[in-house]
């Protein structure tokens, strides 16, 4: 049974970091009396929920803008702002051979990226494609996922031949299927976390944010495919 001071916390996590976060929580719970729950959503949705009174203790955004806004609005603690991960883009295509064959035939491939307007990975991907010189020539071939997970599904299912997704999504896959995009052709995708007012007095959330700042965790996050 849990010690008397054990509490529960509820974290709001940007969808792209959900999978790593799940593993981190398992790790954390193994070494702490606290229980951690998370709710997954797009950063924008979570932000809207927080300013409308959502009972979340901490927010793990996919960008830096939203946590900062929350701080400025007095809903989060400034000192708790912390970049917990920096996303990395890859060009991914599970079936390279097919892609090349089709390119040779002149079949117009579909290229998937996340919606640049709503997803930080989408904006970065657009920038990167411009940098590579694929755009604007191939702009018509772009299709947009609602978020990075949907973009992944487009490519994984084969309806889009290739596209840009996060390294964290494909890190388990065959090395040959993806190619890491050089960091210098897009603005770094810095993902910030912040303690929300709701969670500042909660030992579980305090402990967990401290845990996130630890060296050990930083290594783990790197292994997940972040910087």
């Amino acid at each position, binding site marked *: 049974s849990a010690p008397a001071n054990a509490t529960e916390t509820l974290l709001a996590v940007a969808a792209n970091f959900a*999978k790593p976060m799940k593993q981190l929580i398992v790790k954390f719970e193994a070494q702490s009396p606290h229980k951690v729950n998370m709710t997954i959503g797009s950063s924008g*949705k979570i932000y809207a*929920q927080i300013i*409308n*009174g959502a009972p979340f203790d901490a927010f793990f955004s996919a960008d830096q803008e939203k946590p900062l806004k929350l701080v400025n609005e007095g809903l989060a603690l400034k000192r708790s702002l912390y970049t917990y991960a920096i996303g990395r883009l890859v060009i991914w295509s599970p079936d390279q051979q097919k892609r090349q064959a089709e390119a040779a035939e002149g079949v117009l491939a579909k290229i998937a990226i996340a919606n640049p307007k709503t997803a930080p990975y989408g904006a970065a991907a657009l920038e990167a494609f411009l940098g590579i010189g694929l755009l604007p020539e191939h702009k018509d071939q772009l299709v947009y996922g609602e978020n990075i*997970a949907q973009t*992944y599904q487009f490519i994984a299912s084969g309806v889009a031949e290739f596209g840009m997704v996060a390294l964290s999504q494909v890190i388990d896959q065959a090395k040959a299927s993806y190619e890491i995009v050089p960091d210098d052709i897009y603005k770094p995708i810095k993902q910030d976390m912040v303690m929300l007012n709701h969670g500042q007095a909660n030992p579980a959330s305090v402990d967990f944010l401290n845990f996130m700042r630890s060296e050990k965790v930083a290594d783990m996050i790197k292994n997940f495919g972040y910087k």
Partner: protein
Amino acid sequence: MEISQTDMAAIWLTLRLASTVTLLLLLIGTPMAWWLSQTRSKLKAPIAAFLALPLILPPTVIGFYLLVAMAPDGVLGQLTNGLGLGSLAFSFWGLVLASMIYSLPFVVQPLHNAFEAIGARPLEVAATLRATPIDRFFSVVMPLAKPGFISAAILGFAHTVGEFGVVLMIGGNIPYKTQVISVKIYEHVELFEYEQAHYLSVLMMGFSFVVLLGLYLLRGTKTKFGMRF
């Protein structure tokens, strides 16, 4: 495959939500549909069209507007706080309210049609047999409109189960509290846990199929006028 505790909780929550919403919608949709079927007001068509509008907006957008309304300084939030009920957002009853708004047209439409199809004669007959208006409604209108009620229940129930955008927005995907099965499946997909997602989907379809089949069987085969042999 193991079914996790949060999955079970989500299934249970979903069934509770869908049943509650369906029942409440039948309760409030019935007088609305009855009014629509009986009125000769010029406002009838506009009001009927208005009731279908929640369908037009994407669920997340409705969810967003509802969220704003339910916030402590929103219209609904002030109301519920004033009544000492606390905030509706991120609570079961918030989900209920949101789902009701979203599923209302699916309940009102079939009822409206069913009521209209009855015509005036059975009501007139009942009146000559000393049935009061209320009595007429329960003893004549309701049984004659049974297929309409079943359809309303089917559409209302199924739609609430499948609903996702609104629920995600209002509920905040909080395990054990507002995390319904549709959101849970979404979560599995986001976590690349496709196998669990399939599994849950199939499970839910199985559950729902049983409920829907039950409703359909309840509906019965109408004996046909004139089919005598």
